């Protein structure tokens, strides 16, 4: 937060309130991702269903954040870092909502997978991927709250590792599918799951970029380090 509050204290309270909403949304999304990954590993259909239903709450929060921000812009006419705060809240809420959707998707596919036989140690790798991504998201949101530029840059760099993890999972599934064609169905679902988790990682990076915009006033110019080589035919 900036060092001194606004002379109009109600402005401070409005800003705090949207930030609180954002943090709540972030917490819900983190929990959803972790729960979905857990449900996948434990083949827990009930947990997966809970995650699916929980997405409604996440969407409702995004809507609320949007209308609160619109109201804040209309009534307070924020400028400079206050304006960037409000704009970044809107963008981050959007990213979080997408991440929540991916968690829901993960949960849906998990339910399907419970009806298919498990494939090797795939769930363990996916859990590792999910964990890494959730940590990225948590760090990104932390860096937003504390305006921690170094942490944000670090999160951005970690996307590279997540991409590499995804690459190895991709090859792993290829191997499984080549080994036994009966695995193909399950592996397809698992692959989408892994892709979705990797996309969440991209959204976490997007959050980190919003932090850099908030603190410095400019979007980071250099390209994200992308290591996703799956596009390139082997």
């Amino acid at each position, binding site marked *: 937060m900036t060092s001194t509050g*606004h*002379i*109009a*204290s*109600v*402005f401070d*309270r*409005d800003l*705090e*309130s949207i930030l*609180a*909403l954002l943090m709540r949304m972030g917490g819900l999304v983190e929990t959803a991702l972790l729960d979905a990954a857990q449900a996948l590993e434990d083949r827990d259909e009930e947990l997966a269903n809970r995650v699916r239903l929980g997405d409604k709450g996440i969407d409702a929060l995004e809507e*609320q954040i949007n*209308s609160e921000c*619109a*109201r804040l812009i*209309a*009534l*307070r*006419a924020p400028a400079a870092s206050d304006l960037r705060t409000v704009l970044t809240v809107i963008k981050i809420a959007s990213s979080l909502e997408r991440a929540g959707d991916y968690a829901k998707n993960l949960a849906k596919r998990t339910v399907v997978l419970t009806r298919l036989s498990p494939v090797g140690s795939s769930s363990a790798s996916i859990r590792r991927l999910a964990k890494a991504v959730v940590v990225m998201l948590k760090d990104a949101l932390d860096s937003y709250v504390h305006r921690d530029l170094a942490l944000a840059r670090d999160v951005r760099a970690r996307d590279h590792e997540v991409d590499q993890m995804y690459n190895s999972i991709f090859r792993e599934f290829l191997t499984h599918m080549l080994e036994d064609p009966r695995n193909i169905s399950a592996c397809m679902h698992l692959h989408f799951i892994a892709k979705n988790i990797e996309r969440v990682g991209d959204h976490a990076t997007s959050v980190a970029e919003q932090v850099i915009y908030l603190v410095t006033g400019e979007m980071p110019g250099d390209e994200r380090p992308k290591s996703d080589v799956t596009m390139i035919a082997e």
Partner: protein
Amino acid sequence: MNDMRTMERIVSTEGNKITARNVQVYYGTSHAIKDVDVDILDKTVTAFIGPSGCGKSTFLRCLNRMNDTISVCKVTGNILLEGENIYDSRVDPVQLRAKVGMVFQKPNPFPKSIYENVAYGPRIHGLTRNKAELDAVVESSLKKAALWKEVKDRLAAPGTGLSGGQQQRLCIARAIATAPEVLLMDEPCSALDPIATAQVEELIDDLRSQFAVVIVTHSMQQAARVSQRTAFFHLGNLVEYGETGQIFTNPKDPRTESYISGRIG
């Protein structure tokens, strides 16, 4: 939703402080205010906005019968303060003005000491019995107006020696010293610099926990910052009256939308 903000946003529905129905104001033959119906709620800041000459100041001055001093001005309709018609023939405007205080556009402290400025109202209305009580009233009014700390060591200094923002806060202290129920403010910040304006707006936000405040402003941004209810006047008509957030994000009347987005006025 942050629960505290919800609580603050809920306007206390302790009932109407002032109810105006079918108010018309004539300046000689010109029909300045037409068919205005509006409710001023207690413990709420209500803002009157509108382009120049739309009648918002005229209507404000009806609420404490300051229009009586203009001989060509005629007011008809009902204006009830807590159920009593303020234009009833039994009402003495002098007594009314102790209950409905007013702060003007240009800070106008009396050319007397700071103490005298605040003490004048309670003294002429006989609100205190002795000097100790008067001192207490002066102190509490200056504290409520966020001026006490700055002037407590120089209460005998002339009121006109303060800065613009301080003078306006002194005028506010003077208005609230008579323990009014409603505080009317006619463009109170238009003569002040932005920092003093922000201080006065913060003060208004504090005051609304004790009074109903009606503020006329030509700055819609100020109305947006400070009020919970907004009334938009245009050419003497009350076009729209509603909750401030809703008026500024999604007004119902197209004229309101045009004014707020800067297309007319």
